[in-house]
């Protein structure tokens, strides 16, 4: 005989379905219901840091953009601190930056887009090197049974990326490139382009976090 362990089990995931926009982005579904809408604009006029746009497409196994997906982004502020009580790093909180946004892929082009700032480095797990600047992404859609977790790193942060404790876990090393957002300038705006591949030779690294 043995004592019973009394843990509960996590509720099972189910797909977000084709109409996820109704609940999470009702304006994209085609109607107005809330006074305050959550969305892709993560910065206000007083947010500190370099303004960047992060955009791209989610590509399926046939090479076609997924046009009904929803992507969320969670990141540290420009100083490298998360707006959350569990982050006790000695760095400033930015009261004008929550660090979270949500974007629906465009029904015509499949493009998602976030207006944000470039995050700073965040401390790694104890005993590990700092993590290179990165944003955390969570992807749901019709046909995706449980949300997919990945990260986008900034390709121009070559030295920090080379030392990043998470990127260095990825084998073969060539797959680390699947997490690199490429810096571009467009009409004086800084844009990081990041296409996410669900399958195929360029399949993005997804994490079990």
């Amino acid at each position: 005989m043995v004592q019973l362990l009394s843990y509960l089990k996590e509720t099972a995931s189910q797909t977000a379905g084709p109409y996820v926009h109704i609940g999470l982005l009702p304006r994209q579904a085609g109607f107005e219901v809330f006074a305050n809408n959550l969305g892709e604009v993560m910065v206000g006029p007083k947010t500190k840091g370099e303004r960047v746009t992060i955009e791209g497409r989610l590509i399926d196994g046939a090479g076609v953009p997924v046009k009904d997906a929803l992507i969320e982004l969670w990141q540290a502020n420009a100083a490298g601190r998360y707006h959350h009580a569990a982050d006790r790093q000695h760095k400033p909180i930015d009261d004008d930056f929550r660090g979270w946004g949500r974007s629906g892929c465009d029904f015509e082009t499949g493009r998602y887009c976030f207006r944000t700032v470039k995050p700073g480095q965040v401390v790694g797990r104890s005993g590990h090197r700092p993590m290179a600047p990165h944003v955390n992404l969570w992807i749901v859609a019709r046909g995706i049974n449980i949300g997919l977790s990945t990260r986008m790193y900034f390709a121009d942060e070559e030295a920090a990326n080379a030392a990043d404790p998470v990127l260095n876990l990825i084998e073969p090393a060539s797959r680390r490139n699947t997490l690199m957002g490429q810096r571009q300038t467009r009409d004086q705006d800084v844009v990081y382009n990041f296409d996410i591949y669900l399958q195929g030779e360029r399949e993005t690294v997804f994490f079990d976090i």
Partner: protein
Amino acid sequence: MPRESEFFQRDRTIHPPAFTPSYKTSVLRSPRLPLLSLQNSLSEVTGPVFGAQELGPLDNDLILNYAKNGEAIGQRLIVHGRVTDETGAGVANTLLEFWQANAGGRYRHKNDRYLAALDPNFGGCGRTLTDADGAYAFRTIKPGPYPWRNFVNSWRPAHIHFSLFGTGFAQRLITQMYFEGDPLLAHDPMFGMIPDREAASRLVAPLDLNASVPLDTLAHRFDIVLRGRRSTVFENKLQGN
């Protein structure tokens, strides 16, 4: 204040796998390489926090929050329950969002072409924060089943979609609540592809007469469990300071 400790490993045997051919859309949208297991860092144990001031007074009342010239049509319904983690602790002040079809099974979405009528007084979405104990409640109408293009004659059982944040981004979850006694459940690929039947049954919300309002509104109870956090004093520290 949330602890900084990491989450229990996710038990993937209770979740539907990514590749489920009976749900045809999953075939081209499922990663084929193994997920890379990652010990939690600050990036996973932190997550967005939302405040009550961001919500409107009718955000949790789908009978009234899109009412134009009358109330939403359908069986009046209260859905309530408690959000806990795997240790049984209530998850306080976390954002729940929910969406559903109307009583005829039609979604208010520009891509839904089902012939059933839209209800001019029903939007089909709402949101609320859990209280200090993790409890939540909202009011709506019971959604109808509807056909979908999987097999020629596929019908989804009545369901309500739920989105939850928890206290860290690794707890992020979307699921669906079903209704006790629905005969369509036995035919539904979404429900059927959950590998653990106990886990599937936990998505079926029982009728809760004690929570119903006599002569007014029936109720179903739906409790939701998010991943637990480690708590032993011998834990690996996530941060050096």
